[in-house]
């Protein structure tokens, strides 16, 4: 058990590329921290530096208060679960799990007892004498975890441990990982590119992009109060809608109509170097069928009418896709997110994803009047991605004074 502190940790490769830049992170003892970001954002490199598999170019890494920059992985007393599981194929499950204990030169009885214990926790007892080749993907994954927990290390590092499992098993294993971490109370750093995993598993989430930390915080805080465009677009599924907004006479001209702004935002927009164009962000659940909104709620938002393209009924609610006229929001962050999602095809025009109540009588092909909540709107500066609605760390919507 130990805390992990990264103090301005950077990784520069011999060819000059900087994979990780000045990462400051304090992971408390027993905390479950998720490193998340698109591929190539430096999350795995960061994890490997904590593990000791990669050298640290500059900065300091402390585990349990002790500087470990120059320590070999085996002297750091941390265990790692690999994406590929990396089980030793020539050893049985039992031998795989006993391997780290054997290297510690424990006596056979202790080793056996510890292996049995870990196997029981992960329900591996009947598989102990099998070879990895005779195990299913989920079982292999559990053996990999067993090998990590068996020697009670100071911390666990997990490098996308669930990404090789099929979707159903992944959800199941997510709860296993979560329960295990709570049970053992061991400091855990978990790398993933899947924002759902990040949201559901971690005490705190670290969002990285291009080797730099974008925002650190509990999942809900990142969701509600994203510091910038990248965080806003990365967290949430379906992701936040982004619309182009032109600043004119103290209002924002958008495809959804003219959006009024509050005093604080107006003051900010009146300054000389303020951007003339903004990106308006709004999450799918902040829309509602205008018919179903009561008078009081109606006053907190505004309405627009748009043709319905597709209706996906989820049972509990409906995902409704609208086509809206107007310019598409564009920013480097958004392109990067789209590329990471593999969406190089957007179909032209601006698309709007909304999550409406299941009672909404909306049908494909017609047009529908939709209300949206102005208090939940985010405004971003397209040049640097900054969230303008964020005030002292809280997002207050467009109308805030």
């Amino acid at each position, binding site marked *: 058990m130990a805390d992990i502190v990264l103090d301005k940790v950077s990784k520069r490769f011999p060819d000059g590329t900087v994979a990780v830049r000045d990462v400051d992170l304090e992971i408390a003892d027993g905390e479950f921290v998720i490193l998340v970001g698109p591929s190539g954002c430096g999350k795995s490199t960061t994890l490997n530096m904590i*593990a*000791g*598999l990669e050298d640290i170019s500059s900065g300091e890494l402390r585990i349990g208060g002790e500087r470990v920059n120059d320590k*070999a*992985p*085996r002297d750091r007393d*941390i*265990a*790692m679960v*690999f994406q*590929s*599981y*990396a*089980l*030793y*194929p*020539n050893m049985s499950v039992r031998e795989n799990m006993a*391997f*780290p204990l054997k*290297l*510690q030169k424990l006596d056979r009885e202790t080793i056996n007892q510890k292996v049995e214990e870990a196997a029981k926790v992960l329900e591996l007892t009947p598989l102990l004498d099998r*070879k*990895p*080749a*005779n*195990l299913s*993907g989920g079982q*292999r994954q559990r053996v990999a975890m067993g*090998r990590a927990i068996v*020697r009670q290390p100071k911390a666990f*590092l997990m490098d996308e441990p669930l990404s*090789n499992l099929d979707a159903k098993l992944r959800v199941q294993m997510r709860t296993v990982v979560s329960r295990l971490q709570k049970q053992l109370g061991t400091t855990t750093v978990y790398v993933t590119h899947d924002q759902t995993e990040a949201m559901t598993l971690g005490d705190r989430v670290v969002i990285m992009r291009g080797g730099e930390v974008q925002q650190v915080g509990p999942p809900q805080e990142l969701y509600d109060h994203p510091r910038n465009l990248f965080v806003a677009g990365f967290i949430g599924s379906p992701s936040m809608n982004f619309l182009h907004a032109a600043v004119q006479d103290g209002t924002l001209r958008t495809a959804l109509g003219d959006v009024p702004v509050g005093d604080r935002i107006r003051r900010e927009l009146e300054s000389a170097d303020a951007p003339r164009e903004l990106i308006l962000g709004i999450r799918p659940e902040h829309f509602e069928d205008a018919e179903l909104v009561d008078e009081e709620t109606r006053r907190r938002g505004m309405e627009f009418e748009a043709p319905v393209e597709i209706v996906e009924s989820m049972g509990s609610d409906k995902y409704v896709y609208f086509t809206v006229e107007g310019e598409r929001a564009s920013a480097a962050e958004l392109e990067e997110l789209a590329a990471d999602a593999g969406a190089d095809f957007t179909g032209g025009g601006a698309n709007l994803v909304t999550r409406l109540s299941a009672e909404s009588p909306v049908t494909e092909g017609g047009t529908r009047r939709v209300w949206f909540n102005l208090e939940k709107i985010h405004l971003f500066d397209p040049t640097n991605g900054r969230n303008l609605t964020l005030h002292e760390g809280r997002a207050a919507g467009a109308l805030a004074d």
Partner: protein
Amino acid sequence: MATETTTRAKLRWGLLDAVVVVFALIPVLWIASLSFKTPATLTDGRFIPREWTLDNYRTIFDTDQFVRALVNSIGIALIATAVAVVLGAMAAYAIARLDFPGKRLLVGVSLLIAMFPQVSLVSPLFEIERQLHLFDTWPGLILPYITFALPLAIYTLSAFFKQIPWDLEKAAKMDGATQGQAFRRVIAPLAAPGLFTTAILVFIFCWNDFLFAITLTSTERARTVPVALSFFTGESQFEDPTGAICAAAVVITIPIILFVLFFQRRIVSGLTSGAVKG
């Protein structure tokens, strides 16, 4: 219809295989047959001896010459194989795992050595070994064997090492292994099929060599079997040693067959399956 084609295809392949096997085996069997014949029936042209005798075998093991050569051969080939495989494993591991300056050059040079015609090296080697007092000694043969076996070993082994997932080594390190322990306990067992394959190839190369053995030896001190065979003569110059030579040829084939059979059981494919999800 489909099964018919496959049966016919199987037949065709079986026949082709049989032809190849027979073609390759007939000279060997002929030699074996000759080794069991008496001098009188040696030239009767029969494939199966009319009179079976073990006299030829008795003769060769009676002469100190052959036994001595056999000891030399086994010793020299085993030592050269061991050294070449150990050195080759280290070099191949470095080539497969590390990026160091001059890597391509190293690989290129080792390939160059493998391609160099050995005949052209015989005279200089002879001179060098005489100067260094290595001529007609075990090291005098072991050294050139290692030199020519190393490129072979490095090539085969680096191919094997490249197949082993690197994550395994990282996992071993995380589990508390030193670099050496990771290699010995995780990587080497997985590379075992490669090590054995290489050992077989190198051993056969050393065992069969005639050129170096005949130039770099002069007495029974280091003369190996292939050379000793060529020095076989009868009791008198009129005696025909054909039977004895054939017996000796059969005898020296046996270690290779044993060597291959013994290690073949270890060359199990798919040893790394289950290590990582592909």
